[in-house]
């Protein structure tokens, strides 16, 4: 009768983590398959598939070799299988513009993007989350009204506009001519602007919810100071819930980064994608999309891991009661 319904063991959490990771991997696989299929259809519909596949500026020989490599003389089904397997093997071919393997071109740009998003995330964790906690604790107060509207307004200013205003303020004539620290600072600033109101609003909800929980009352009734209640009870619980919500926004930060990196000339993957698609450098475009998809689901998997590590309730789901 009494006693836990199951004894806590190591395999509960392991099973849960394994399931989440498999789910994320499945999502990544499904997205990559869909992307590859869509790109294949587009390639087939284009006037000269081989020229598109080889990338803009390819020599006649390079187009010819792409034609052979993708087996464009074979039956359509075989072409499809060839295309998808090549993509899933991360063999995107050579970029004529860069004179290098497309995957290698993208890989060299990854650190810049990671650095940029890490900076934006750190700044948001500082500003956005604090704002959200402040807002959540005042859910019943009058200042909540205008603070909330201010955030909603901030969120409604697109990153593109914020970036352009920054460009104008700084007087950056050409993206390419900007110094790296300047372009990094402005990019990070714009992305932080993009993420902060979203993170703040998504944090405020769980915080306001946690404050109303009965266990907060219990802690208070046992003599917890308001600081103990906030740091020991409200924040751990609500930030856990907020993390799950903000994780999705972080994935979308990567798509905002495409515009922002291009605008400020920061040499990340997003910038590479923007430049390559304008130049119709197909191998690099395909590799960049795959890289971003990988980053997105890696982010989700990381959020899953953190949640599993911190939230004991998740472990229960892994074992039947």
């Amino acid at each position: 009768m009494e006693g836990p319904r199951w004894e806590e063991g190591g395999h509960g959490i392991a099973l849960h983590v394994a399931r989440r990771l498999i789910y994320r991997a499945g999502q990544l696989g499904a997205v990559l398959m869909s992307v590859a299929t869509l790109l294949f259809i587009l390639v087939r519909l284009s006037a000269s598939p081989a020229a598109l596949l080889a990338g803009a500026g390819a020599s006649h020989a390079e187009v010819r070799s792409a034609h052979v490599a993708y087996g464009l003389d074979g039956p359509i089904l075989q072409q499809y299988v060839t295309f998808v397997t090549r993509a899933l093997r991360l063999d995107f071919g050579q970029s004529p513009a860069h004179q290098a393997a497309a995957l290698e071109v993208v890989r060299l740009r990854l650190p810049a993007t990671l650095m940029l998003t890490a900076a934006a995330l750190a700044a948001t964790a500082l500003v956005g989350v604090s704002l959200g906690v402040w807002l959540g604790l005042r859910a019943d107060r009058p200042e909540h009204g205008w603070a909330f509207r201010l955030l909603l307004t901030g969120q409604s200013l697109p990153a593109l506009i914020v970036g352009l205003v920054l460009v104008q303020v700084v007087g950056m004539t050409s993206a390419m001519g900007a110094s790296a620290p300047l372009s990094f600072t402005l990019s990070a600033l714009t992305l932080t602007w993009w993420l902060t109101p979203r993170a703040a609003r998504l944090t405020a909800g769980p915080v306001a919810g946690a404050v109303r929980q009965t266990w907060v009352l219990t802690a208070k009734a046992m003599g917890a100071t308001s600081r103990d209640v906030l740091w020991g009870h409200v924040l751990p619980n609500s930030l856990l819930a907020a993390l799950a919500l903000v994780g999705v926004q972080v994935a979308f930060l990567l798509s905002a980064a495409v515009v922002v990196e291009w605008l400020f000339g920061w040499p990340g993957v997003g910038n590479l994608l923007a430049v390559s698609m304008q130049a119709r450098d197909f191998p690099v475009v395909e590799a960049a999309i795959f890289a971003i998809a990988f980053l997105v689901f890696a982010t989700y998997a990381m959020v899953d891991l953190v949640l599993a590590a911190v939230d004991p309730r998740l472990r229960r789901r892994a074992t039947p009661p």
Partner: protein
Amino acid sequence: MTGPVLAHEMGLSRRLLPAPAIPRPGLLVGGMVGLMAVAVLGLVGAGIVQEHAAPAQRLLAPGTIGHPLGTDQLGRDVLARTLAGFRWSLAVVLPATLIAGLAGTGIGLAAAASLGWTRVILERATETAAGFPFLVLAAPVIAIVGRGYWPLLIVLAILASAPFALAVFDATWGGRGRMPVFQALYAVPAALPVVGAFIVADLVVTEACLSFLGVGAPEVAPSWGNMLADARQNVTTAPWILYAPAAALVLTVLSANWFGEGLGQLWRVKAR
């Protein structure tokens, strides 16, 4: 720390507590006024004849007679082009939202109504699609297909149907399992305008971003994104090109977001 809601949970009578915080209708009303302004400006924009490039009138400063907001690097009037941008934006975004709404509602309801593995697969697929920033795929697709009204419309519609489907599914599934049909009949129509408003705001921005990157509207089209790209090119010589399209874009996005949030708050209070 203890708020009124908590007191209610503690068994205190509802009568003792201050009335539930009814959201001041500011957001909703503000959003509606803004959206009406956008609609009117769209109608005005529809009546404007597209000016062609006039090399003699390039980069005139604001305040020039006949060009209150100046002209761009091809001699086109910034004000006229911005107003025409309302029409262009609405003509792309509204049909895209409508198509996405229909498709998304269909998928969401199908997911909610189906059983067993079908539901799991539909739900997971919707979740995956809604969680992936498809902008990074949409931009290259238009780059390959070529820019234009129809590619843009279709891409945006596909882009927006996943969040629609997810919202409809969440509204009917209610977190705890399938909702009775009669309840869903209220929940879905209540959720749609809220999601719709947010998606309109999102698509307006997406359209501008795509056009800005040169993979959206045709070069001659009066898209705000095109105008912002022009502004970027002439940032030091003609800073005025930026302001009008930026303000128009912000007005539209802000109104749609305020409207959606205001309506959402209203439903939440009514649900209590």
